């Protein structure tokens, strides 16, 4: 690895870290929210988030998995292998009772937060993700 490559990698790592921090709470919330309609696999979750946000939110699919892993570790979601609608093997995630509670809590927190930010910026409750 040359020094240049190394620094590029380091930079991209830094950036992604920043973005992840920005996303951290939100992505978890979005995943939990999506799963309220029933078990879903990773690709399905990514699609659902994109679709329900009218393609406003562009989720990098790869970034979904660490989040899923984290939620699973916290026992907010559980996973098992199954067969997808188009007859392919996939790992399905579903909401646990603990996760449902967490969703309620997070939703509440998020709406208070976004309302507060909105009030300050004078934008109403709508928040745009850049």
């Amino acid at each position, binding site marked *: 690895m040359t020094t240049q490559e*190394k620094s590029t990698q380091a930079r991209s790592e830094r950036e*992604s870290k920043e973005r992840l921090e920005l996303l951290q709470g939100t992505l978890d919330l979005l995943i939990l929210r999506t799963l309220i309609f029933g078990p879903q*696999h*990773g*690709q*399905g979750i*990514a*699609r659902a988030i994109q679709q329900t946000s009218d393609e406003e939110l562009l989720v*990098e*699919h*790869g*970034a979904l*998995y*660490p989040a899923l*892993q*984290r939620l699973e*570790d916290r026992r907010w979601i559980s996973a098992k292998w199954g067969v*997808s609608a*188009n007859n*392919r*093997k*996939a*790992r399905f995630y579903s909401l646990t009772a603990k996760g449902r509670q967490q969703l309620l809590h997070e939703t509440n927190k998020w709406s208070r937060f976004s309302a507060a930010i909105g009030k300050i910026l004078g934008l109403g409750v709508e928040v745009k993700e850049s």
Partner: protein
Amino acid sequence: MFRRKRTAKEFRSEVQSHIENETQRLREQGLSEDEARAGATQTFGNVTRAEERFYESRRWLFWDHFSRDVRFGARVLRKSPGFTAVAVLTLALGIGANSVVFGVLNSLILKPLNVPNAESLWEIDRAGKSRGATNYQSYKDYLDLRDRNRSFDGLAAYNITEAAIDTGNNPTRAWMYEVSGNYFEVLRIQPFLGRVLRASDEHGPNSAPYIVLTYDYWHARFQDDRGVVGQKVLLNKHPYTILGVTPPGFRGTVLFFAPDMFVPMINQEDIDGVNELDDRGNRWVFEIFGHVKEGVNTTQATADLNSIGSYLSENFPKEDGQASFALSRPSLVGNFIGGPARAFAKGLMLLAGLILLAACANLGSLFAARAADRSREVALRLALGASRGRVLRQMFTEALIISSVGGVAGLWGSVVLLRALGAWTPFTRFPIHMPVEPDAKVYGIAVLLSFASGFLFGAVPMRQVLHTDPYEIVKGGSMQKPGRRISVRDVLLVAQIAICAVLVTSSLVAVRGLMRSVHASFGIEPQKALLVEPDLRMAGYTLEQMPAVRRKMMDAIGALPGVTAVGVTGYPPLAMGGNTTIVFHDDTADFRPSNAVSTPFFFRVSPGYFDAAGTSLLAGRAFTWYDDKEAPKVAVVNELFAKRLFGTSADPLGKYFKLRDGTRYQVIGIVADGKYLNVAEEPTTAIFFPILQSETGETWMVVRSSGDPQQIAGEVRSTLRGMDPGLPLYIQTWIKEMNGALFASRMATASLGVLGVMGAMLSITGIFGMAAYSVSKRRRELGIRVAVGAQRKEILEAALGRAFKLLAIGSAAGLVLGLLATKVLAFIVYQASPRDPVVLAGAVLAMLLLGLLATWIPARRALSVDPLILMREE
């Protein structure tokens, strides 16, 4: 926690399925296969990064790194087997020494007796001014203590003795406790079989012909036969009934002396041949103990006992004098054995700790040297992006690998040694063994010590790693600065050499003490002498018959070829035990103990004993067969006794002294001073009475031969057996019998010697490592010196001067410390004197030799440096 919930492979297949699904969806939207796949991959982002993050999110990351470090460390260590072997061995020695010493400490001193509620069990000692506390009490005093105290749940007493047991024409000797009737009730011991002795079994002297067997004896002698209960056996020819068997774990009430059986103390006359139950002044009961009542503390209990003490002093001033009592732990008979044993074990633990510390210092400097050699590797790893934390962790892992392997090896060795020690019976005549058993505590300590030492020496190169500048090293090669300032390594080496010098000095002191004690005058000549104990008591002879039997035996043995002299004594000196009596001036009328002039050891001996024992008669005469009951009472005394009683100026011959009962004894002879109880004792007074005037049930014959005493042993045996086939006999050379008296100082010397050798080995490896390292570092410099014409002396000075300087500083410091430590040793070792020129010279010489030995190879290496080869390199 250690279980991997998902494997990386499973994760990969999930990602795969994600991309497949996305591809299919895109294809369904009308894209071509290739476009769809490209799109799916693109929206997914960096697959590798997802996998990496997945890996990092796992909880086993720490263990993953750890196992990698272990594997890498093992590989690195395998590449330098010499270093690894030295390091592991050093640590194994250190940890092994510690766990052995701790094992002994643990089972002899920390652990209480194996009886119920051992924590409230206390032994009652008689506090004394002149000789310190003693465990011995009289039976009468015991009864008063038992019946008058209000602080104990019963008080029990026991005495250790030996008797012949005969289950049907096969008399064998057995060791037993003579116990008070309430012994088992006080101890709360339930029988394994049958029943145990009860207080209600006693109805005056010789009223309770019962014995209780220990489990071990029942198992070995009666092959677990449950029918023994109620069976009759002969004890010294008296019929006794077996009541029952004690439970398996119960081995009596003193740690190292497990009896075969228990007999009632009230039957003393059957067992010992004498009845001392009513003699208040005769303190023959070995120990009194009991559970302190709940809610009563030891201070209150002692006060209670002392109020009984003042009652005793008031009513029995002649027998009891000033009676006061103290409590101590019964496991090692209070301070009788416990005191010196505890002091010695603590001292040993300290020395073992020093050994480990020296080992750590040794390894620390080795590691520091290694880290310096590996500075390139470290720099490279840092340059490649490893964090300093990771590099340090790697180094610590290596240290831990060494410390665990060393710890396991050390522990293994110590377990083997402890087991051997536990099975070892140092004396043939006594059932004495050390009940050491490695247990969880010992293992725990070993593990703890190995981790602690791993961290200790692993931390030494830390600063070096933290200060590594990868840029400088990669660019400029080795980071050797020519600085001459004192490095951590030097300090460690000096510390280690100092510790080793302490060990060498103290072991030299101990060895010297032992040598002195062996060559000191014992007052007897144990060489070429045989000790024979024909147990007349066990053979059923009465006290009245014994004098005639003894004389007959002496005549028969004296007539054997090769026998030059033969004598009888009630008990030989230096054979683990002794009797003392108190002596008064001839003009004394008030026989309180406080008026006594001396407390000499006393022996009852026959005519011919002094010749047979090799005790030289300095003045007067020895006993004859006419010094019998009808003759006036006479005594032979040792020189010190004569001086103590009659002063140096007067002639002691013909003078008189008195015993407690007022009897006058005339001094008819003076013999040389000797050792009577143990070889390390201070010069002590001793008196000898004619055996015909002073009855005893004990008989020891001293047979002096012109050649090897072992060779006449067989003839002695057959001669005595010819006179009485049922006579229990014990025959041993006097030298071997004296092992007991030499045991303590021998053990001390052996353990100190081992520690000293360990210390020496450690300093050799330490100095060697340091010297070899500095030579290899400076080969180029040395080569240049040789090339420009340096002499051998200069080369050596350049290469090893520093090592020798450190050695000198360390040795000097260690010597001073060692001489200070010697004061502690004086408690155990015979005449341990720190200001002994031989010890001083020996220690200096030893350290010098060690230094020479350790620097020999490095010096050879330094001298063999070939400048041509070196110059051609690089």
